[in-house]
């Protein structure tokens, strides 16, 4: 007999406590990088632009400089910590903005008339067909490389995919009878979006946010690697790899450390996405 207390509660997002071990590890790594992104500038042992050892450039790992020095003799650890705010923060911000815009547009498309939906979908598909790296390069070349321009371009680039994702998920939900029940009751569109539809597509949204985050982190790093992203003296991890490419033949940690950091960031996000997107199996 089922007791009153053991009854399954309504479907909510799983608390992180119920996550698989690997995803928890991912969350820990991501939390670490998020902490570095916020406080990295304060915690760094040296200023990112300081020439700590101009005689020994591209130095190997040592007690004094845990990740060695770069091609100008700056502390790599400090530069990675200072660059985290771009590599972690900028994708987080732009993926969030793109998702929010996609949410507003995608849910409106499902609730509005067909003509609006069709027109919007055409527009979005046109945008979607643009190759993202090339588009970003052209836009940056045209508008100059500043962080606001980068953020705007990337947000705009990722709105269509967020829109498609939200629209597909919202359409599945909006065909269910409880939406009809709300409409017959006379609920406003806002209530239907936020109380009836949104809770049901939240796992999809979080999954898509994670995936966008990864793509944007890689896109930004790629742009910086090409010299079109974050400009000196500031540097994100992609730029760090690029400026130290000379060290590749010496096996300098200055090249590998930022690349490994980037890998750990994207992998940790992937592991978190796994936990959110995995549907709770029926008992």
């Amino acid at each position, binding site marked *: 007999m089922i007791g009153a207390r053991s009854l*399954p*509660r*309504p479907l909510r997002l799983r608390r992180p406590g119920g996550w698989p071990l690997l995803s928890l590890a991912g969350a820990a790594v991501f939390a670490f990088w998020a902490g570095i992104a916020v406080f990295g500038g304060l915690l760094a042992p040296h200023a990112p632009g300081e020439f700590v050892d101009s005689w020994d450039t591209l130095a190997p790992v040592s007690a004094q400089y845990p990740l060695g020095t770069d091609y100008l003799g700056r502390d790599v650890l400090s530069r990675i910590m200072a660059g985290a705010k771009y590599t972690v923060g900028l994708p987080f911000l732009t993926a969030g903005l793109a998702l929010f815009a996609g949410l507003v547009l995608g849910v409106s498309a499902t609730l509005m008339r067909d003509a609006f939906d069709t027109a919007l979908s055409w527009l979005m598909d046109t945008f979607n067909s643009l190759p993202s790296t090339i588009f970003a390069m052209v836009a940056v070349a045209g508008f100059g490389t500043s962080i606001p321009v980068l953020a705007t371009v990337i947000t705009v680039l990722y709105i269509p995919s967020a829109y498609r994702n939200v629209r597909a998920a919202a359409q599945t939900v909006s065909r*269910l009878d409880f939406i009809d*029940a709300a409409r*017959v009751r*006379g609920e406003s569109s806002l209530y239907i979006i936020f109380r009836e539809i949104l809770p049901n597509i939240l796992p999809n949204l979080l999954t898509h946010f994670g995936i966008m985050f990864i793509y944007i982190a890689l896109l930004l790093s790629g742009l910086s690697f090409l010299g079109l992203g974050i400009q000196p003296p500031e540097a994100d991890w992609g730029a760090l790899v690029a400026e130290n490419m000379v060290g590749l033949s010496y096996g300098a940690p200055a090249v590998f450390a930022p690349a490994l950091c980037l890998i750990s960031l994207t992998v940790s996000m992937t592991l978190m996405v796994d936990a959110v997107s995995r549907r709770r*199996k029926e008992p």
Partner: protein
Amino acid sequence: MQDRPFIEVRGLTITAGRDRRQIVRDVSFTAEKGEVVALIGESGSGKSTIALSLMGYARPGCTIAGGTIRVAGQDVRALDAAGLRRFRGKTVSYVAQSAAAAFNPGWRIRSQIVEAATLHGTMGKAEAAGREAALMETLALPDPAQIGARYPHQVSGGQLQRMMAAMAMINAPEVIIFDEPTTALDVTTQVEVLRAFKAMVKEQGVTAIYVSHDLGVVAQMADRILVLKDGEVMENAEAGELLERPRAAFTKGLLEASRPRRLELPEAPADAPPVLEVQGITAGYGGTGPDGLPLYPVLHDIGFSIPRGRTLGLIGESGSGKSTLGRVLAGLVPAAKGSALINGRELDLRDAARRRRQDRRELQIVFQMADTALNPRQSVAEILGRPLGFYHGLRGQARTGRVAELLDMVRLPRHLAQAGPRALSGGQKQRVNLARTLAAEPALVICDEVTSALDTVVANAVVELLVELQRELGLSYLFISHDLGKVEAMCSEVMVLWKGREVERAARDSLTRDPQHPYTKELVRAVPQLRRGWLEEVTAHG
């Protein structure tokens, strides 16, 4: 070997999930060659699970944990993957519930039917095609030589269901498993399909396992009936014996629930004012044509009125427009023509959003699928609380108290308020669904197929609840159903819809006693009865 039964299941136990919960417990039965054995029970009784295990198959997450299964001299549990592959489709085959989901819409029907033969290498293409045409003829399909060249969407649901039986029979298997093969069909179609299945089983001399929840259907098909409950055999007897002299209490209950019923309806004064008056409703889909009417009209000139405290039954086959009428009245589908009055006030038939709040409150709709009608991310308290706050401005303690009262009204325990819809059974969900409409304190409730997804016993309880609520609250209902038994049980008046038009309207008893329109006659005749031999009588008539 020789004196062993053809199908022999001994001590079959099947477990599910990580906690190895037993969903089938120690089930044993046998079937002789050429016999039809029916497995009957409610949803969750394990009837399909047992049938699938005869093919050595357990659904994902389930394990055949114990017992022996012997089919046609084969120990099914001892077969390896390659052995099972040869065994399935050749020795034993399967007819699923939904043919529409079982056929690939992109391939011609014939190519899908003969595939099993060429795959197993039992016959050449030409021979398989010849056998396919012969089977189509056995199954009484029109133009048997040519119909296989069509695509699945070009034939009717009943025809497709028969074609799936042809697919199962192409290799001349020794055992065929029917898994609720007529549940998705209209009763009038069901008769033809049952007749075709019976003829085929007889002609091919195949041993059949027939899974169903419908005792009336099983009574026509089976030689032997196994009654299942919670994965255990309640009774196993020869069909005629079981129907006439059931021994287990559960079987008796099932038989009782399957009999036609007539609930006593609350007395309503003869001069009661109409709650809903509808005139000349025409509606459809696909935009409007030059004449201002829908391009694909579904309803033509429908009119009726429902007095206070009365129930109008609306019956018709799928596609007759009965659900569309419910949705038009609820304001979900716009009407092209016509008008409606609720308690004497004009009702906007274009969109629910244009209606007055009072109109929306007084006219409520209960949807067919309780599964999708409740938001899985809200608790029962939230689901019931919303209309209380929305229509009556109830907050806090008052709202919580009223939710508890509503749960009492639909005979649910109060502690369910904190549960989510997934914790509820099908019948409980439908009661919550009903409670949500009661929260609005409606005058008229549209019940759209509210019992069709439920087991017989549970459905009867819901119908009884509706009548009790009518007595207590003076509610009026528009009861939409394809099930004549349910309509007769609770409706004071019945309207028959056929191809979007009203073809007959009569008081509850006169409809079954003296149907006028040819469709109504067919409908009344096609309702399966518990009497053995009914199928032959019906088909002899038609």
